[in-house]
């Protein structure tokens, strides 16, 4: 590539001519290599995360002894048939089963149950959700449930570990 290299070298020497052309060819070469390298190493997949916790036996015992009625603790256990067994304690106690639809877990019904449960306790009641998988459940199933419960239960623990 040439970009007025000859004229620039001659005019630079004399200093009298105002027609000065910068030789851009080596700069373009460097840029091409750099851009190719950056494009090759760029990650076009945008990865996010859901934070979870693994409750240890000491945490489980110390956390609940202080004021057991101050928080709403929900345990969601995925069943082999796709149902979700919900049990809750603390500020309110009870249980419910979210029935699967077409053999798959009903994420919408799960989210609706958690939302209605949260409405039944005072507004600022802290809540924890513990998820327990089954032998048939997958990573996608867990992620779907965490995503659905995010608005009502931001703090999620993975139980049964």
């Amino acid at each position, binding site marked *: *590539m*040439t*970009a*007025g290299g000859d004229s620039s070298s001659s005019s630079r020497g004399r200093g009298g001519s105002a027609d000065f052309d910068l030789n*851009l*060819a080596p*700069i*373009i070469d460097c*840029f*091409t290599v*750099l*851009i190719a390298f*950056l*494009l090759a*190493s*760029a*990650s076009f*997949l*945008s*990865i*996010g*995360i*859901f*934070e*979870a*916790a*693994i409750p*240890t036996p000491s945490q489980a015992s110390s956390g609940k002894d202080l004021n057991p009625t101050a928080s709403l603790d929900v345990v969601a256990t*995925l069943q082999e048939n796709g149902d979700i067994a919900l049990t809750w304690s603390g500020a309110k106690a009870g249980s419910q089963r979210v029935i699967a639809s077409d053999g798959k877990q009903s994420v919408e019904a799960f989210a609706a149950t958690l939302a209605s449960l949260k409405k039944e306790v005072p507004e600022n009641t802290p809540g924890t959700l513990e998820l327990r*998988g*089954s*032998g*048939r*459940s*997958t*990573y*996608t*199933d*867990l*992620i*779907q449930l*965490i*995503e659905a419960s*995010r*608005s009502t239960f931001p703090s999620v623990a*993975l139980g*049964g*570990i």
Partner: protein
Amino acid sequence: MKPHTKSFLKRRHNSSGELALQITSMADIFTILLIFLLKGYATDAATVQPSAGMSIPAATGSAVMKEALKMEVTDSGISVEGVPVIQAANFAVSDSDQWSQLGAALAQSKKKQENIASKNTDVSVSSRITLIADGRAPWPLLKEALRVAAENGFTEPQLAVVKRGE
């Protein structure tokens, strides 16, 4: 930039008939591209390069990934920081003794963190671990991997997902 006063034809052909390519605008484009790519490179807090053929589930409302030890679960096994530790066939671990190898790898990573933290007060030992799993990975396999991680001090898993448009 110097304003171009010459005509288009004059610019492309000098008096000797030699073709001179006008690359000033190309240099401008390349500069903008380079800045854009470098900016994207610099703002990525943490990078993840999933293995080929792996399908990470997509989700909305996920948080920004924080730098942590990476544990990848695929149908062919489990790797820690890109190093294969457990071999599996279609998510089935044939030899249960391999779990101790995962424990050893995680313990080594923890020890490395502690060594760095003891020498540099700005660095703290983290209990975070990023779990990058295939969407089809069964819960029993994940549970076992997380159990071994928790035993070695990694009690705060970050579950990786592909960000879906919100």
